[in-house]
């Protein structure tokens, strides 16, 4: 099952929303969290609808609209969203009203918005789109599940163009609670995140949308989504099982390990969880593999791999690996096959294979 990525649109802690390519300026922040740089929503969303929307809805809608317009205004045959936490801010708001106000509710809107499928539903409503519409909310598999479903829709010929998104917001309470579990580093520059040699990472958020389309038989150019694979290692994730899964996946995609030109790693600066990536670099991937990292730009969140997909997409299109994400000093070479590997706290692992069909 494969498809082409026709267009993308990302709202992130970097300057990514105004153009599709990699930004020329990197946003450096000293914090324990990265917050999105948002567009002026009034240019993208009707102000009458805007008023009722929590931030995450605005982000999702804006990113969707931009993506659709970059894909030539095509009406999606399916709208599929992955979000690990949904509209967390409004959920927290309503929850606190129930608890703090002894169930004296002053506003019903946060409850309506707290349903996980609010983003996908709003996009459909604005577009008057009656097609397949679904939301996945399984931690670091949320976006991958959405992408997998998109591929299946196309394979089944139920859809030619699928709007797929990965979106999560970071709230103050979320950071506080997960701080108890040692998730975060003390505030530091995001540019010092990778290889920082300490535990913890930096919290992030983002909205990344893609138009994924069926590949016409004759058209082999374009950035091809070759395959997706996820696996769970709930107890202890050992290197052997990770290598076995990667091997299995590449074989399924009819790709040799030696054909992988670059790997986008989900390193997040936590020296405990990053060990798995280092081990793969040392003993599994071929010597001339280019490695890229991205979580110093977007932070760690459940759908960060959607940001990674965008990065892979623009890299393959431009054939230029931005310095800000290049972890190796291998001389530039054509990048045809790019593997994305993410390992969320040694529990949820995902693999995405991208290919530049023109090379």
């Amino acid at each position, binding site marked *: 099952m494969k498809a082409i990525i026709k267009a993308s649109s990302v709202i992130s802690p970097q300057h990514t929303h105004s153009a599709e390519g990699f930004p020329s300026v990197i946003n450096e922040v000293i914090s324990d969290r990265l917050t999105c740089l948002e567009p002026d929503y009034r240019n993208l969303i009707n*102000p*009458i609808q*805007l*008023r*009722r929307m929590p931030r995450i809805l605005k982000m999702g809608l804006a990113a969707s609209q931009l993506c659709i317009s970059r894909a030539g205004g095509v009406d999606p045959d399916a709208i599929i969203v992955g979000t690990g936490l949904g509209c967390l801010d409004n959920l927290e708001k309503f929850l606190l009203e129930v608890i703090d106000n002894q169930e*004296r*509710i*002053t*506003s*019903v*809107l946060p409850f*309506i918005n707290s349903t996980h499928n609010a983003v996908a539903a709003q996009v459909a409503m604005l577009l008057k789109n009656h097609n397949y519409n679904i939301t996945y909310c399984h931690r670091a598999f949320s976006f991958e599940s959405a992408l997998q479903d998109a591929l299946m829709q196309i394979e089944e010929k139920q859809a030619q163009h699928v709007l797929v998104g990965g979106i999560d917001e970071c709230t103050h309470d979320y950071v506080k609670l997960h701080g108890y579990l040692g998730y975060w580093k003390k505030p530091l520059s995001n540019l010092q995140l990778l290889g920082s040699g300490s535990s913890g990472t930096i919290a992030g958020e983002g909205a990344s949308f893609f138009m994924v389309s069926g590949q016409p038989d004759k058209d082999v150019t374009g950035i091809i989504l070759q395959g997706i694979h996820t696996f769970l290692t709930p107890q202890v994730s050992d290197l052997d099982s990770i290598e076995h899964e990667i091997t299995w996946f590449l074989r399924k995609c009819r790709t040799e390990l030696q054909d992988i030109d670059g790997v986008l790693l989900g390193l997040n600066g936590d020296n405990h969880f990053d060990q798995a990536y280092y081990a793969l670099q040392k003993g599994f991937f071929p010597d001339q593999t280019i490695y890229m990292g991205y979580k110093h730009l977007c932070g760690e969140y459940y759908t960060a791999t959607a940001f990674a997909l965008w990065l892979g997409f623009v890299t393959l299109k431009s054939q230029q690996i931005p310095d800000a994400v290049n972890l190796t000093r291998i001389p530039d070479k054509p990048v045809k096959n790019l593997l994305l590997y993410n390992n969320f706290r040694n529990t949820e692992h995902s693999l995405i294979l991208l290919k530049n069909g023109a090379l």
Partner: protein
Amino acid sequence: MEELIRQLKLDIIEALSLEDVVADDFDADTPLFVEGLGLDSIDALELILLMERKYGVKIEDPKERRNVLRNVRAMAICITNHTNTNG
């Protein structure tokens, strides 16, 4: 009454997050729903909650609701009547 109307307008703007609307943009007789401010059924629920929580007025009958929420003046009259009845 004029003071209550002024306050109600501010309450409505706040409760419904009408960020681009100011009190001078509509008057006591501007229709709130469909035309005028163009509010909808979710807004109606929010306004009912506002009447109840802030002004202690509970309106359960759907017909009465449509009547009371038709504009700010009707809301103000309802609140004033309720206050007079209940001292």
